[in-house]
């Protein structure tokens, strides 16, 4: 029996409908709320008014600044730390499986739990500062979450602590699948540890690095809300505001849905651009390999 041309489309229609409702429809509404305002009888076109409001808001700029700071510090830190630790574990030091387990554990913990525990650790008279003072290192006991200059870096530390585990496991899994003959040949040629790392290990990890880079960027841009909301709620003094928190507060606490929608649109454009650049670079690198 000949299958009709339309049958496959009918079969995938439910999935596409679901995708449309959960993905495309909200984006359409996002554009609508960004450029239109709801009034009693419908919508009124507001043009770029919401964008002008955002551009005049110092808290919004602070949010963007913090997101960019996280992208430039947290993402590379996650990458470097994950690779280095994976390589060390790959040396199969004694107890490496236990270390792998311990390093991965933070990743499975819920973010609110991690956030609350670290609040207690980083308090002015919390565990960390008390320990430092008792060790005679009181000068290092800083105002980790109370200082507007330091709090954002404290949050970044917590993000790296929690998220690095996944990268370590992914990179280690790739390393364990590598052909040992490459390292044997390099050893015979007299390559040292660093040369093996830069000329064999990292090139062999390049595909995984590309994948993890996208993953880390998504983590920083989406999950960062959870960390900030639990640990500082944007404080102290609005210094840890991130774009996601700005959107949440502007929409749900301050009831300015149109402004929040415009901020969401800007975030969507930025993320889309980053992923596009990522794929262009990746596409170029694949082309070079070919």
């Amino acid at each position, binding site marked *: 029996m000949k299958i009709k041309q339309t049958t496959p489309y009918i079969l995938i229609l439910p999935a596409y409908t679901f995708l449309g409702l959960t993905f495309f429809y909200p984006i359409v509404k996002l554009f609508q709320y960004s450029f239109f305002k709801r009034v009693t009888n419908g919508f009124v076109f507001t043009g770029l008014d919401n964008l002008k*409001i955002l551009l*005049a*808001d*110092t*808290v919004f700029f602070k949010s963007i600044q913090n997101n960019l700071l996280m992208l430039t510090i947290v993402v590379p830190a996650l990458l470097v730390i994950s690779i280095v630790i994976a390589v060390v574990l790959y040396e199969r030091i004694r107890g490496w499986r236990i270390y792998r387990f311990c390093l991965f554990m933070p990743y499975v913990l819920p973010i609110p739990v991690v956030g609350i525990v670290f*609040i207690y650790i*980083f*308090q*002015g*008279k*919390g565990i960390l500062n008390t320990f430092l003072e008792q060790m005679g290192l009181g000068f290092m006991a800083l*105002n*980790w*979450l*109370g*200082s*507007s200059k330091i709090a954002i870096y404290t949050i970044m530390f917590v993000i790296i602590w929690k998220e690095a585990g996944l990268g370590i496991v992914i990179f280690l899994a790739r390393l364990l699948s590598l052909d040992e003959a490459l390292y044997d040949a390099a050893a015979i040629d007299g390559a040292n540890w660093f040369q093996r790392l830069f000329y064999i290990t990292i090139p062999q990890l390049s595909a995984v690095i590309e994948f993890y880079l996208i993953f880390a960027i998504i983590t920083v841009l989406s999950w960062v809300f959870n960390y900030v909301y639990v640990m*500082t*709620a*944007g*404080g*102290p*003094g*609005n210094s840890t505001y991130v774009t996601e928190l700005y959107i*949440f*507060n502007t*929409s*749900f*606490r*301050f*009831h*300015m*849905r149109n*402004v929040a929608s415009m901020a969401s649109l800007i975030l969507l454009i930025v993320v889309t651009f980053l992923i596009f650049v990522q794929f262009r670079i990746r596409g170029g690198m694949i082309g070079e390999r070919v």
Partner: protein
Amino acid sequence: MCKKICIIVVLLAFIVTASLPALAVEKINLVLWLGGEWEIPGLYDWFKEAVKIYEEENPKVSVELVNLSTDTYLAQFAAAGEARTGPDLIFTWPAIWCLEHVWKDYLAPVDEYFTDEEKKNFMGFDQRLWDKKHWGVGFYVAGKPMMYNKKIFKKAGLDPEHPPLTWAQLLEAGEKLKQAGYIPIGFGASDWGGGYLVGNLACQTMDNPLPMLQMSVGDKKFTDPEFSLMWEKIYELYKRGYFPENADSLNLWQGWEMFEKGECGIDFICDVQISRIVDILGEDAVGIAKPPIYGQGEQAGKYVLEVQALSITSWSRCKKEAANFLRFLHTEKMLNKFYDGLGIIPPDYKFDPGRIRLPQLKKMWKFIQEGTADWMENFYPTMVDEQGVFAGCQLLFAGEIDGKGVAKMAEEIAKKWRMMNPDEVTKYREWMEEFK
């Protein structure tokens, strides 16, 4: 013929069974989104019992309780409002926290469902007044006393029966408490402590909330002494070291816990905690007083009082039944059960104060009768609260700005809010008419 009779019988049977649901008595289902468990542990369980009693007395009504968390309450309310579906009754804080939702047409006025006699007895009824209508009925009182530890006072050489009533007396008491090795005033600033201080103390330079509304719309400034003086006083206490050293990394609850643990002599704690704290510290250890006076306004020296309410949603299809449930909560039987079960004074002047056992609550009832002041945090925009007041207070306690700096931050955010929200500025101007 037989065939025709069979067809008629089948048709009749079909018609009868199809109309049975319509003939059956329809049960009304009320959905109640309840808040307050965050400051009154056990409130939700009490309400479950109350609902059981109500359902027994009203078999045609069932009440579905949903317990709200303070973290998600505003977002859930906004989502329900936009979808125009969800609860029939919802928890509301007073003034701006309620009116924001009124202005978005999320709530319905309650006046038509209650008699004048009933309304007269509702404590704090005017805290949700807009357009000459009321938009909620109170279900618990949340006053804001200054609590002090009488035993610590005695150890510090202070008279436990005479707490500080003026600012000068507070400074003196603070010094003695500090010298005795105690933290004079427990407090946590890392979350919404700034708003709590405003609520407790800002009213003292004002006769009513009008100046706060004027500051919001730009007719006055947050940097004017009416608002900034309070922050200069707080900064003075901070510089003297009367707050915990790490107040900037403690949240408000942790600041209150210091009082429970006997670490501080004074704290500003919501009176719903009185019974619980008396259980912990002992009846003879806990004193309550009105906040010490520093201002010259009419509200200085009065007991700051909020009444948390349940409001009827505009999309509810059973508003009358929702109002009946609120009426039920205000029957003498339920008012007494509320006090007996939770140790909290219910917001109704019908409540018999003779039932009050704790001397602290008796004093609180007396304060309420003497006249109350407004919780000023309820009279300016939430954006100013969060990005101005909370943020400024956090920086003050981190030692990065002074009292005037906090007022300046509030003013900057207010300017931004006015630019972002011209529609709401108009609403605030209309709201101002209620106080002129």
